[in-house]
């Protein structure tokens, strides 16, 4: 990767927001200052708070009173053995499932039970375990779709002659951001390709690029490294660290314990539907219950 592709942090954060777009302007400012704060290592804010989250499917309790927090500007890992309730927790936070009990707070606001699009709209965006590219749309179209609150998403503004001009104007701004993002992820040579023709790894990159263009504060990544070869894994990690430095916050659900331990500042371990322990990788490694949980032993919580 050549260094021309990587923008300095502040510039990149700004670049995700069209300069004179009225819609996301306030958000851009808060994020900008958030990025500066992160740079200064001021005590961190807590954008995502989950309290006593429970989800029951009939008689089965998949999540049983899980509570955790995700700090601003961190890579936080959410690990746990199969069936620990990671995915269900994830789906409850992102609005795909409605929790049976508990609250999810995002930037101080109670977002429990909101629809997925409302949650994404507030800046809490997600990716999927299996990349969900829009196959019969080109890579460019996939990315152009992502920015939220585009003027032209209103039918009348797209159709009526005297409002079409402002739509076209915003399209040009969005397009510049899209090409910058393509450059950043080194997938600009695929721009005109149908997303369905990409390789598995390219789809992962596309999905990450797409979700970044929604201008989120916090990104929830569902097993981003599943089925990814080692060299791409390295590339993805590089991108994640770079983005974290720019002020983005990540919560990553992952099976691979070593990968999480090596790359995350904070680790949350789930077991049997609740949070077993939470802390720095060193703390978690030192906790014997974690090892037992992974080996399938009985654990006292």
């Amino acid at each position, binding site marked *: 990767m*050549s260094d021309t592709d990587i923008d300095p942090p502040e510039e990149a954060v700004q670049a995700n927001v069209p300069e004179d777009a009225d819609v996301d302007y306030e958000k851009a400012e808060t994020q900008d200052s958030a990025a500066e704060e992160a740079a200064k290592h001021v005590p961190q804010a807590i954008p995502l708070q989950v309290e006593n989250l429970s989800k029951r499917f009939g008689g089965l309790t998949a999540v049983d009173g899980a509570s955790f927090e995700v700090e601003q500007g961190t890579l936080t890992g959410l690990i746990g053995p199969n069936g620990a309730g990671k995915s269900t927790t994830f789906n409850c936070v992102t609005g795909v499932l409605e929790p049976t009990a508990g609250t999810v707070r995002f930037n101080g606001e109670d977002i429990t039970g909101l629809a997925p699009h409302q949650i994404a709209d507030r800046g809490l965006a997600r990716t999927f375990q299996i990349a969900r590219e829009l196959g019969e749309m080109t890579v460019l179209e996939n990315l152009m779709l992502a920015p939220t609150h585009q003027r*032209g998403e209103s039918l009348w503004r797209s*159709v009526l002659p005297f409002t079409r001009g402002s739509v076209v104007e915003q399209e040009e701004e969005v397009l510049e951001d899209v090409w910058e993002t393509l450059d950043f992820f080194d997938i600009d040579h695929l721009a005109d390709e149908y997303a369905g023709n990409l390789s598995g790894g390219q789809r992962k990159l596309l999905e990450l690029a797409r979700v970044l263009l929604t201008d989120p504060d916090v990104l929830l990544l569902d097993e981003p490294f599943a089925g990814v070869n080692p060299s791409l894994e390295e590339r993805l990690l590089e991108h994640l660290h770079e983005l974290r430095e720019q002020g983005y916050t990540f919560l990553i659900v992952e099976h691979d314990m070593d990968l999480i331990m090596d790359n995350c500042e904070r680790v949350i371990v789930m077991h049997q539907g609740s949070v077993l322990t939470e802390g720095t990788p060193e703390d978690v490694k030192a906790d014997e219950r974690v090892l037992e949980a992974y080996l399938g032993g009985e654990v006292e919580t």
Partner: protein
Amino acid sequence: MSVGDSVPDRVSAVGSSDPAKIIGLLVFIYAVYLVAGSIAGINPVSNLTSLTRWIGLFAIAALALNLHWGYTGLFNIGVIGFMGVGVYVAAIVSKDPVAAGGGGAVGGATGGLGLPLPIGMLAGAVAAALFGLLVALPALRLRADYLAIVTIAVSEIFRLSVRNGNIASFDVGGLSVGFGGGDGLQLDWGSEVELLFDALLLGGVYDSLSATAERLIGSPVAVDRIGYALILLAFMIGYYALLRRIGNSPFGRVLKAIREDEEATNSLGKDTDRFKIIVFMIGCGLMGLVGVLWFMNAGGGGGSVNPTQFRPDTTFYIWVALIIGGAGSNTGSVMGGALFAAFLYRGPRFLQTVIDKLTETDLGSFARRTGFGEAMAPIAGSFDPIPLLLYAVTKIQSLQLLIMGLVIIYLMQNRPQGLLGHRKEQAAAISLSRPDRRSDGDRAVAADGGAEDE
């Protein structure tokens, strides 16, 4: 400069631009019909106007359906129901008023509100859109195949409801209106072409045209036929322009995304339910307007509607037209509509007429005296296929469905995306090539590198 190489691309793009493809195809179809028609001695005016009629109708119907299925992936197989709502509401709004209790006074059994035809057409479109909303609210939350079941059910419910004698005629504010029951409704509002020309303040043009036609051919009917054909072409251009504009916009981009993966689209902050409801209503409204144009039968005597015309057959014809052209492409929809109308819908009957004229055989009496057995016997005896071929020609109406079936099977096997499907019709209001506003050197190098990689 990175723009340098895109200029020749643009020039060649004009030559093969979408409207040019459509015009090329239409010219080809018209040439075939003109040549075949003139060989057979068919009046070119009636030949071309009736061809245009069906091309126009199928093209706009396929365009409306393409918005549902091609763009958004909404499986609507109740098209004819929405067309029916459109034409029935237009009839009630625009038929001449009949005083309550005086049923049967003017033309049909009941009258209407007597408002101008353009208002009736608008009302028909709005009513079809609202009917679409009614269907959409509960049904759009369902998976695609259940939406299909709901739409065809609703279209059948509509057909059976208008057949109901209890609402055949009722009084509203001293006027007798109604749905006509099993007898249907006469669309006896006068010459639609004249009314629509008047609405466009072109009444004088219409009058002078009819006077000229009267003088030249001795009949003003030709003006109505030509006028109707021109109106349909105008609607075709209007629908095409509107739907292209919708497709090439951020709105259209979200529609395509919903078609591809609704959950993923939702996760990007798009309120997919809102988009689906809006687009379903717009599509149904457009179908309602198609319904009015379809049944008004301008250029002939007054049109009429009755419930048997709203069986699902027409829905499936429109689907065939869309599949031939390629779902997802507006240009494909128009071309599919034109090809279907010219070669599958009208083609066989036209061919029958041409063969009739050419062979100078009286096919009618041939069909009456020859059964399948008599047609087959010469093949078995003396290998003479002519009687069987003639027999097939006389039965061409029945063979039409068989031919459509064969075409669909062939397409599904060899080109499931249709004629123009799977094209990169980028859903954006602008060209998506790399913007060249920044002239900074590094970017230009990166752009060139990117192009070479491809």
